[in-house]
């Protein structure tokens, strides 16, 4: 007796979350059945393996049919074939577009092209995520990218509108799309210690402050591309390291302010010029595409690593960067040369402080290098896996 056909169709489509997860994880029916058996479901329900097999097959078939709709989530809401309660629809979409940290870390900043797709087997072996699941995630990235690529308006809103994702997930996708568009290098060994969350945090700040959309939200602009003019302006910061007097003045201002507050004060004092030069050079180079791509690598090399070698504690880095950007205000020469606009509202609130990052940027207002600094700060801060980092970087609306 062999089963030729075995189906179950409910007026309300049955969705088993556990099976859905297995399906999303790319397990074959046989593997999924084995996993379910292991979960002890047979003992709990008194069912037989055959029943489980048929149930799993059935769910897989349903998911397979739903997949086409999930590619364009608004369709799922309007289609008539599957009667699914709204909460379940949301769950289906959310889970379908969810991704693995490990996987996204591998493809972040890479071009979402066929070439990359070919490398998925390697990623699959490396991360232990099934190839199927890798493909789904990659295709999701690519699909979202394609849809919002040419679209005007807020990136996050666009993603939410066209894919009906939750706020958090939409932000993550915005980060992925942003990275993919600007092709930031994230795969270097030096950057391995950074998590996707770290990059997503940076991406969000950059979208808000560095892009065309950030300059004037009224304009029909895109959030994806960096504001070239702004990058051009950054060149002017060179004066901070090129002008010897200015450099000294800056240093003394920072040192005076931080004296006694830093545990690594002497190292800081000794290294100030190097650090400052490093930071400013990174910023000044951003006019070239190649250098934009290497932004994170450069930051780590020029700033994070020196600090790391001197064993700066996290709080010290925070103080330093804070002061570093704040002191620029009082630089006469700088104010003259740059017209003062860049540093005008530089009232830096660090994400670690009581203010949430969001409010920090409201205060910051117009674009400024301080974000840049914050950028460094945030990257640097993650390198120390100290108990405090999870406290401030994992703000609830980011993860």
């Amino acid at each position, binding site marked *: 007796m062999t089963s030729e056909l075995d189906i179950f169709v409910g007026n309300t489509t049955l969705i088993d979350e556990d099976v859905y997860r297995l399906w999303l994880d790319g397990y074959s029916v046989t593997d999924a059945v084995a996993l379910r058996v292991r979960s002890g479901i047979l003992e709990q329900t008194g069912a037989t393996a055959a029943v489980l097999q048929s149930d799993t097959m059935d769910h897989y078939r349903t998911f397979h049919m739903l997949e086409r709709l999930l590619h364009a989530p608004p369709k799922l809401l309007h289609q008539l074939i599957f*009667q699914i309660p709204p*909460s379940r629809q949301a769950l289906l979409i959310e889970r379908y577009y969810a991704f693995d940290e490990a996987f996204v870390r591998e493809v972040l900043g890479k071009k979402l092209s066929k070439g990359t797709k070919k490398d998925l087997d390697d990623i699959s072996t490396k991360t232990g995520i099934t190839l199927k699941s890798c493909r789904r995630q990659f295709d999701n990235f690519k699909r979202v990218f394609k849809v919002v690529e040419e679209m005007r308006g807020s990136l996050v*809103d666009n993603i939410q509108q066209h894919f009906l994702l939750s706020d958090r997930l939409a932000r993550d996708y915005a980060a992925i799309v942003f990275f993919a568009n600007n092709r930031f290098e994230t795969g270097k060994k030096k950057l391995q210690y950074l998590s996707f969350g770290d990059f997503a945090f940076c991406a969000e700040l950059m979208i808000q402050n560095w892009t065309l959309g950030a300059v004037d939200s009224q304009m029909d602009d895109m959030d994806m591309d960096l504001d070239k003019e702004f990058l051009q302006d950054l060149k002017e910061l060179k004066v901070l390291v090129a002008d010897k007097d200015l450099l000294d003045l800056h240093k003394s201002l920072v040192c005076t302010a931080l004296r006694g507050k830093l545990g690594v004060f002497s190292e800081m004092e000794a290294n100030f010029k190097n650090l400052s030069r490093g930071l400013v050079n990174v910023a000044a180079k951003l006019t070239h595409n190649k250098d934009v791509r290497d932004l994170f690598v450069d930051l780590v090399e020029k700033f994070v690593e020196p600090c790391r070698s001197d064993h700066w504690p996290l709080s010290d880095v925070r103080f330093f960067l804070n002061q570093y950007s704040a002191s620029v205000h009082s630089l006469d020469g700088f104010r003259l040369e740059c017209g003062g606009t860049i540093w005008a509202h530089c009232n830096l609130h660090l994400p670690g402080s009581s203010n949430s990052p969001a409010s920090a940027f409201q205060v910051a207002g117009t674009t400024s290098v301080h974000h840049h600094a914050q950028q460094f700060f945030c990257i640097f801060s993650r390198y120390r896996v100290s108990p405090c980092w999870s406290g401030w970087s994992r703000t609830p609306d980011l993860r």
Partner: protein
Amino acid sequence: MPGKLKVKIVAGRHLPVMDRASDLTDAFVEVKFGNTTFKTDVYLKSLNPQWNSEWFKFEVDDEDLQDEPLQITVLDHDTYSANDAIGKVYIDIDPLLYSEAATVISGWFPIYDTIHGIRGEINVVVKVDLFNDLNRFRQSSCGVKFFCTTSIPKCYRAVIIHGFVEELVVNEDPEYQWIDRIRTPRASNEARQRLISLMSGELQRKIGLKVLEMRGNAVVGYLQCFDLEGESGLVVRAIGTACTLDKLSSPAAFLPACNSPSKEMKEIPFNEDPNPNTHSSGPSTPLKNQTYSFSPSKSYSRQSSSSDTDLSLTPKTAPYPQGPRIYLCPSSPSLSCGSLHLKKSCLLLSESSLTPHHSSLVSPVLRKSVSFSEELFLAASGMGSGSAGKEGGPFKALLRQQTQSALEQREFPFFTLTAFPPGFLVHVGGVVSARSVKLLDRIHNPDEPETRDAWWAEIRQEIKSHAKALGCHAVVGYSESTSICEEVCILSASGTAAVLNPRFLQDGTVEGCLEQRLEENLSTRCGFCHIPYDELNMPFPAHLTYCYNCRKQKVPDVLFTTIDLPTDATVIGKGCLIQARLCRLKKKAQAEANATAISNLLPFMEYEVHTQLMNKLKLKGMNALFGLRIQITVGENMLMGLASATGVYLAALPTPGGIQIAGKTPNDGSYEQHISHMQKKINDTIAKNKELYEINPPEISEEIIGSPIPEPRQRSRLLRSQSESSDEVTELDLSHGKKDAFVLEIDDTDAMEDVHSLLTDVPPPSGFYSCNTEIMPGINNWTSEIQMFTSVRVIRLSSLNLTNQALNKNFNDLCENLLKSLYFKLRSMIPCCLCHVNFTVSLPEDELIQVTVTAVAITFDKNQALQTTKTPVEKSLQRASTDNEELLQFPLELCSDSLHSHPFPPVKEHLESASSNSGIPAAQRAVTVEKASPVGDGNFRNRSAPPCANSTVGVVKMTPLSFIPGAKITKYLGIINMFFIRETTSLREEGGVSGFLHAFIAEVFAMVRAHVAALGGNAVVSYIMKQCVFMENPNKNQAQCLINVSGDAVVFVRESDLEVVSSQQPTTNCQSSCTEGEVTT
């Protein structure tokens, strides 16, 4: 020109890409009704075209309005080549033709293509302006309402129940016409769909005419079926019960009109019979002595039948020259093994007490006939006035005469209803059924389908005579079915013989005359169990006792019926689904030889099915079956029998005896041991079942019932082996009471298998109940979550093991596994009950068995088991908790994970929360009429708020039941009767047979829902999948499937809402939820 049909094509969405180059479509629409066609403009380059057409107006006869479907075709415009069809929508405009139903059809319809399935949706508005036509000779029957529901629809009152209406129309099947060789599969499928749509329209119109003739205004229990006879044609036939219905002004007041003025009471019983006693002497022909003489020669004598005056045999029942005549040879020795009565030509599957009254009669009940020439064995079912005097007194006799005369005006006193207004059913006799094997021949003249008509007339006559034999003048719960394999066709009909209260059958003038007297008799709530036949004149040997409830009247020990459990019946414990499954191999043969072989097998199958049912019933410790449905399916090389019923313990009937096993060779020690082991197992099972179904009847002092002494000689003998218990033929005595046991003799391995199979039926997991009736006896605290589903399984038998036993085992496993699978899938709904479990078996090919199940799972509240109505306080509390859940929708969804990990807790302690948190139920609850308060998804979309995201598709519930738990049906919108064909030439690509059929059934559901929503409804009740014919050819990568579904589109309002908005128009609520789909762009 009595009607103007107006159609407007608004828009389309999600159309498929028809132009590969641009990835877009240039779509336009053709609207066709009858021979008139209109076209919209071409909407260039869009997958979401906005046609916004003018109103297309068709001026048509109302006859056409009833027959023709509106046909909407969506096409892709192509400048250079022929336009490509995207798909079609057929809209049955019948619901617009009667005043109380829908006024407009408006909504999104899936665009369906027989090759590609659903391809996008189209928004259509349809209206009808109907002019009254008072022409008496008109051919149309607009205004007659149709209901699939087999009870009086909830918001109506039955004034008169007129009776049986039937009709059939015949045509050539387009699939078998010569033109089919040159046209595409798509064209052929569409021709077929259109033809069937046309035929069912015509059929409905004709039935409507008959109803108008009877002066009714509605058809209830309308059942329409297709017989795909292949080469010989296509038959569409329908049966129903004509009624005069009154709409209840207030939905709450559903009271039978039984307030007879007391003065009329004095006039009884002489006034109310319009046809005084013309027939009273007829049926009383005292042939009663003959009924006991079961010698074959006598019972076959035609003389006896001639004395049966009120059978009114029409010439039709005379042997028919064209049809193949199949006679069961009455004296065939092969039939006599152990059950001489098998030769009897009529089947009285009824309350069969299996007491031997005669040495040669072992099991009394099964008589079966395949052909009509021998109808009759119990011609003289003496139920006249003479015998009636015995128990009911003159009153009963009078009642009989009166009802009889009311019924005898009709050719067939049949009712397709299964549930009745209170007081309608007086007595129930038992199941009557008839089958006939026919050879199909080409239908030569489709306009005069005499052959088919005659076939059914024969069967109905037989049913009628069986009912008479049981002392009943009517048949209720009547249904007809066919099974076709190549050119052989089995026609089956079955129903429950019953005595009815004439009140509902006659005109309102005499309404309520017998009321008071009747009430006296019927108020005991056990009336329907009392035997309608004369105890001295019993049509078959039954084992009677005094009713355990009233102690006045006699009842049989077991009662089988095809109807639902009457609402006023007293039931102890809960019910359960009981199935008998059987396979019989048969040699492949041609034509007549084949038909003969089948008809030879049929009686055996009936007998075995019945035995199985009986055994299983005893094993469950129950004494009555409701909703019995026996399906015999014929295949190339086998016959399948599947009987489903719901077993219950009726308080009025005696406690069933146990089952005893007797060995054939009593001297073998180890054998003995084995037997006693088995016996113990059986006893354990019975005890366990009694506990499981909470059957603990009150102990009754033995004196009342009779002598408590168990008399071994009075055990009934059953099953193979010439019963050696040829001892005493006592008069029917009532002395042995409940100690009577059922004896199974184990004399060969076959019997062993049977006993084993009895014990292998696994009870459903705790928290689950199942039944095939409308509701589960013993559960009345339903909560509102329902999940209707269809499950299909096909297994391939390996040709090596084709023995009857292996076959039986395979079939048994198939059904059991299917049930297990259902329990597993629906585990998140626990505690719940599968209601209206409807199994259909078909044998599409040599080694394939296909089982289709449609049922609905309804949750119930375990902790309020005995509470029928909740106090307002409780209700509001419940509502509050529901609201909370809705607000917490998403969090709950997440936390249901944890519940999933232990989905089968033996007992759920918390009442509302526990049952509703887990998975589906919570989700379903959100989706009520109140538009599933969008709070749940609001979490996700509060920022985006795209214009389309908030308006989801309106929810349409589907259920095979006639009601929706926790809700009130406020309006019936019309009948849904749809037929779809789906074909594929890329089976593998669509996920194999399972993927193909899964998608198709989902699409069928979607189309039904869309039609209901367009009518302004939010549910389908009495939904039934009447046909699901699946054919595959994996080698060619092809498959084809035909599905026919029907149901009643309704508007319902949640009871909780009803309280709140009782003053408001209830329908607005729903309409808004349904129209919201149209607002979207």
